[in-house]
């Protein structure tokens, strides 16, 4: 096989390269570009899976933006983040400083926190459904300790807190690993210099560690926002979106609209709006909190 060009037309190497890239592009055309085209088409037409699509222009968009259930699900993303962000950041910092603290047992501790991240979301959602139930182990322990039972899945705010706890349990190990990788890059001389200046532990944490961790914390924030908009398995299996749609996420509403109420055009518009909303929120978060830290 000759890999080099011979000056006439495409070389053998270029032909093989084009063929391999072409195979992927063909696959992409069928399973990515064509669905993309359908999504765009659905968003401006009226269609019910069986009839011919009828062009309706911006009517889907207007209808989506006035759909109280859809707007409620967007508000639920905000409510989820209100619980999730403190849990995610607090947990990530705890895991990161913990990993730094334990020394030799580091790998073991990391594995304990990461097992939840790589194992089954479906299975563990079912486990938490039982753990949070009114007679479940969590309520039994609370009942034995302080004599109260918490109706986790029957109260709108508690149900959202329960979902946030489960999702945080799943991702905190990964976020902690991200922050830990940032901790490793902070130069020790900075702390030594700060000690010479009589800076206390709290000052060192707030003025050196946290600013130096900004890139990693931004990464955690970005992942947390994407998780919030993509949430489906946990609320679908644990609360079923209830009580009264208080934990219904955008992905659940899209699923319901498309496959239960058979309004794919409406659902297509929703999924485009959701993607744009998550993109805008990520960009906004970066503008607000991203800092270029330069050691002068």
């Amino acid at each position: 096989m000759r890999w080099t060009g011979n000056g006439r037309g495409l070389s053998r190497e270029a032909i093989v390269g084009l063929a391999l890239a072409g195979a992927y592009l063909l696959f992409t055309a069928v399973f990515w570009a064509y669905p993309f085209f359908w999504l765009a088409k659905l968003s401006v037409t009226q269609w019910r899976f069986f009839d011919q699509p009828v062009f309706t222009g911006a009517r889907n968009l207007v209808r989506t933006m006035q759909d109280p259930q859809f707007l409620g699900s967007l508000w639920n993303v905000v409510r989820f983040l209100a619980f999730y962000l403190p849990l995610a950041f607090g947990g990530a910092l705890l895991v990161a400083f913990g990993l730094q603290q334990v020394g030799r047992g580091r790998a073991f501790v990391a594995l304990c926190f990461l097992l939840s991240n790589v194992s089954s979301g479906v299975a563990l959602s079912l486990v938490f459904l039982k753990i949070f139930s009114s007679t479940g182990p969590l309520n039994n322990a609370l009942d034995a300790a302080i004599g109260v039972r918490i109706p986790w899945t029957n109260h709108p705010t508690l149900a959202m807190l329960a979902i946030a706890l489960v999702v945080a349990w799943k991702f905190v190990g990964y976020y902690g690993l991200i922050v830990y990788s940032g901790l490793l890059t902070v130069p020790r001389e900075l702390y030594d210099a700060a000690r010479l200046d009589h800076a206390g532990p709290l000052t060192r944490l707030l003025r050196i560690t946290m600013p130096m961790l900004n890139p990693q914390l931004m990464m955690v924030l970005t992942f947390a926002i994407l998780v919030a908009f993509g949430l489906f398995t946990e609320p679908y299996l644990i609360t079923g979106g209830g009580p009264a749609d208080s934990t219904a996420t955008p992905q659940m509403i899209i699923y319901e609209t498309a496959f239960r109420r058979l309004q794919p055009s409406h659902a297509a518009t929703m999924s485009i709006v959701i993607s744009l909303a998550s993109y805008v929120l990520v960009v906004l978060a970066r503008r607000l909190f991203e800092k270029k830290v330069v050691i002068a």
Partner: protein
Amino acid sequence: MRTRLSALLRSKTPGGWAATVAIYALALTWLYPFAWMVAASLKPTPQIYTTALFAGDWTLDNFRFLFATADKLDRPFLQALGISALVTLCVTASVLVTSAFIAFALARLRFPGRKLFGDFLLLQMVIPTTMFILPLFVLVKELGLLNSLAALILPFMMSGWGIYMMSQSFRAMPEEYFDAARLDRASLWQTVARVVMPLNTSIIAIVALFTFTGTWDNFLWPLIAISEADRMPLSVLLATFSKQYGGYAGPVMAGAVLQTLPLALLFLVFRRQFLQGMALSLK
């Protein structure tokens, strides 16, 4: 021995020791849901909520129920396990082979539009995949593939992420290997299978592991594409079983153990590759 112990004790301040113990305790607490799941799967259903974690009459009845009795409730768990395994292995094998060859082209072959191709892969990875689920359903329906294993395999046979990850690693290989392969007149297949793949086992393991776990635990897509119980993968069959027969807590937990076990085992055996893979995605 005693001097070593006292040296170990003095290596940290008392506060440092307290923090260390606390973090170990927290790490073990993180495993509690797994422990509870396994314990519940081995107890008779009435004892699940009433006994302490390690108390109760241990039994394998829940697993027996899952494999024998559940069939009569139109919930063929053994078959679902087979479907999950088949689909996951097909997707993983296909992603590995296609990614290796296409990544080799992207990283090492000169062809017109190569830079553009790389940029396109990056663009694809930024666009959220959940957006495509609805139109993908329309496509699979048009192809007449609903309720078939092809619906679970075909759309995932290639992965832009896999190609991108492998190409990053292939790019770092010294050119001498390829000079030698050229001198020996190695074919494309030989170059990739005998030279590139053996020298990049760690990235290949990473792509394989993350593809496997992602496919095994995929839920939303098979939930939409498969509606007949005898074609469902384990994740969906388990969820529908739990929705309909939630009272059978023991068998549900036994199913959860089945769904979790392959992933947990893979993670424990290949923990180094998993950690490496996570560290790679941080760059």
